[in-house]
C-alpha cells in the first residue's frame, strides 16, 4: 500500500452496544483497514465477527443502544466520527452508499420502485419529477432491468429477488457515489443470480470508478471480487492482505482454518477440515487472543496476552503471536512465512 491513495481509512474503530444491565458488548473492537481508491476490499468473517457493524459504523447507522466509542473513519481525510447528523446525511446515499443482504425486505413495500430511487435525486440533487424520472429509467437500464419504463411504476412485491437487488443497486448508485458498501449482497439469492449480481457490481465499479467494501462470509465471493481482504474475528481484524496472498499464503491460523473448511479447486484437498468450537459469546470473551481457545497452536501466552496487528511483508498485516519474535511455541508452524 502507501503508493495508492486511500479513499477511506478506518483506524482503531470501536463500536459497542450498551445493554440495560450496564454491560457493554464490544461488537467492533479496534478495527483498522484502508480502502484504496477504485479497489474492492473484502471484509470476511463468521456471523458475529462484527463485519456488518463495521459497515454500518462507517455510515454511522448504528441504532441505540449501540455507539461508536472511539477511533477514526477518515473519508477523503475527513473524520466521519466527528460529523453531525446533517453532515452525515449528505454523505449517505450521495458519496457512500450501502446495499443490504435482504432484497426482499430492504425496499419499502408501500412505494413504487421509481418513487424510491427518485428520492435520492430529490434529496441530494434537488431534481424535479420529470428530470429524476428520466434519470431513474437510465439507472434501471444501467443495472440491467428490462423495460424500465414499466418497472418504474411497479411495487417491490411485483419483482423477483434478483430484480429487487438490482433495484437496490440502482438506488445506491443513483447519485454516483464514490464508495459502495455491500453487506452480503448475494447471500439471500440463488447461486445463478449471485453470479449475475456480483458481475453487475464489478461492471458498475469499473464504469463509475468507485471503491467497494464487500462484506461477506463467503470466501468464494471474495476470491471473485476483491483486491484486498480483511479477515475479522470477534470484532478485530486478524489478517489483512491482498487477495492473491491471502488465498495462496494465509498466515493467521483462523484464516487457514477458514480456507481449509472451504471446498477449493485450486489446491489439492483430502477433506474439508472444520474449525473446532464456536465463536465465543461476548460475555465470555477470552482475555488473550480471541481465537486462542479454537487455535491448534495456542500457547500459554496466546491465552493470556492479546497480540497487536503487526505489519509483516509488503502491505500485509497480521494479529498473531506466531509471527512475532516472542513466539515460544512450535517453530514449525511458521512454515508459511516467505
Amino acid at each position: 500500500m502507501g503508493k495508492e491513495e486511500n479513499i477511506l481509512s478506518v483506524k482503531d474503530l470501536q463500536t459497542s452496544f450498551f445493554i440495560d444491565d450496564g454491560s457493554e458488548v464490544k461488537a467492533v473492537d479496534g478495527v483498522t483497514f484502508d480502502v484504496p481508491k477504485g479497489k474492492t476490499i473484502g471484509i470476511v468473517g463468521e456471523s458475529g465477527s462484527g463485519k456488518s457493524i463495521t459497515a454500518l459504523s462507517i455510515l454511522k447507522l448504528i441504532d441505540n443502544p449501540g455507539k461508536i466509542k472511539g477511533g477514526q473513519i477518515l473519508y477523503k481525510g475527513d473524520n466521519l466520527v466527528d460529523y453531525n447528523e446533517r453532515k452525515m446525511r449528505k454523505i449517505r446515499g450521495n458519496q457512500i452508499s450501502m446495499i443490504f443482504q435482504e432484497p426482499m425486505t430492504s425496499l419499502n413495500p408501500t412505494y413504487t420502485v421509481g418513487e424510491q430511487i427518485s428520492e435520492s435525486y430529490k434529496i441530494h440533487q434537488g431534481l424535479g419529477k420529470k428530470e429524476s424520472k428520466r434519470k431513474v429509467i437510465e439507472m434501471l437500464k444501467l443495472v440491467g432491468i428490462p423495460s424500465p419504463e414499466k418497472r418504474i411504476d411497479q411495487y417491490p412485491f411485483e419483482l423477483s429477488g434478483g430484480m429487487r437487488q438490482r433495484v437496490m443497486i440502482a438506488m445506491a448508485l443513483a447519485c454516483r457515489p464514490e464508495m459502495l458498501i455491500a453487506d452480503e449482497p448475494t447471500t439471500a439469492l440463488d447461486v445463478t443470480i449471485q453470479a449475475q449480481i456480483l458481475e453487475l457490481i464489478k461492471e458498475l465499479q469499473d464504469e463509475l470508478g468507485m471503491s467497494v467494501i464487500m462484506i461477506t462470509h463467503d470466501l468464494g465471493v471474495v476470491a471473485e471480487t476483491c483486491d484486498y481482504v480483511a479477515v475479522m474475528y470477534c470484532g478485530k481484524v486478524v489478517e489483512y492482505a491482498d487477495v492473491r496472498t491471502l488465498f495462496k499464503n494465509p498466515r493467521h491460523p483462523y484464516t487457514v482454518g477458514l480456507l481449509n473448511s472451504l471446498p477449493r479447486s485450486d489446491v489439492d484437498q483430502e477433506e474439508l477440515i472444520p474449525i473446532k468450537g464456536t465463536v465465543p459469546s461476548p460475555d465470555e470473551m477470552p482475555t488473550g487472543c480471541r481465537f486462542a481457545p479454537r487455535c491448534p497452536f495456542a500457547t500459554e501466552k496466546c491465552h493470556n496476552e492479546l497480540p497487536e496487528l503487526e505489519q509483516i511483508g509488503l502491505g500485509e498485516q497480521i494479529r498473531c503471536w506466531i509471527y512475532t519474535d516472542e513466539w515460544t511455541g512450535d517453530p514449525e508452524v511458521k512454515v508459511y512465512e516467505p
Partner: protein
Amino acid sequence: MITYIIRRIFQLIPVLFGVTILVFLMMHLTPGNPAQLMAGETAPPEVVERIEKRLGLHDPLPVQYVNFLKKVVTLDFGVSMRNSLPIIDELRPKFWVTIELAIYSTLLSIFMGIIAGIVSAVRKYSFADVAIMLVALFGLSMPNFWLGLMLMQWFSINLGWFPPTGWGSPGQVVLPVITLGTAGAAVIARMTRSSMLEVISQDYIRTARAKGVRERVIIYRHALKNALIPVVTVTGLQFGTLLSGTVLTETVFAINGMGRYVIDSIMARDFPAVQASIIVISIMFVLVNLIVDISYRYLNKRIDLNG
C-alpha cells in the same frame, strides 16, 4: 382503483339485502301483534282487523317483504306508531346530528391517537411515552357516560366554559365529541405505537437512512404509511363501538340524535321507527367499512385488485 371501488360497492348489495331481510323479519319474529299494539290492548277486534289489512299483514311473507323493500328503497319507512308522522321526516335531522357527532369524534380519535402513538413510538420509554400510554389506558378503561358526566361537572358546571347540554353551537360540540372520541383515540394511540415500533425496526427503514433521508421524513413518509395498515382496521372497528356510544353520549348531553331516537323507539315498541333506524345505522356502518377497504388498498398495494 376506480374499478375496485365500483366492485366493492356492488358487493355491498347482498349485505344490504341481508339487513333488510333481518329487519323485516324482526317485526314478525317478535311476540305480539303490531296491529294490536297500534290499536291498543283494549281495541275491538274489528279495528285490529282493519289495521292488519291496512298494513298488509294478511299477505304471504315474501309479498310483504317485497312491498316493504319497495318502500325502503324510496326511503319511505312508514309512519311512527307514536305520533303517526312519517318516520323519515323525524329521522332526517336526528340522523345529521348523529353523523356530525360521529364524524367529529372519529376525526378526534384519529388525529389524537395517531399523533400520540407516533410520539410514543419515536420516544420509546421516555417520560412522554409513559405519560401518553398511561393516559391512553385511562381513556380506554373509562366508561364514556361517566367521562361525559365528569366533563360536564368540571367544564360546564364548575368552570362554565361550555354549555352542559344540547347540540349545534361550537361550544356545545366540544364535550360530547371528547366524551365519544376518547376511547377511540386511546385504542388508536396504542395501536399506532406498537405498529410504528414494529415498522421502525424493518430493513427498509435502514435502507432509507442509508439513502440520506431525514429522520422526520423517515417517520412520516417511510414508516407511517406502513404502520397505518393495522391502525385503519382498528379505526373501522372502532366506528361500530362509536355508533353504540352515541346512544349514551346523546343521553348524557341531551342531544336530539339518532342514538336517543332508537332507544325511545324501542321503549315505545315503535317498530317502524326501530326498523328505519337499524337500516340507516347499518348503511352507515357498511359505508365506513367500504372506506376502510379503500384505504387499505391505498396503503397496502399487495391487496388484490379483484379482492
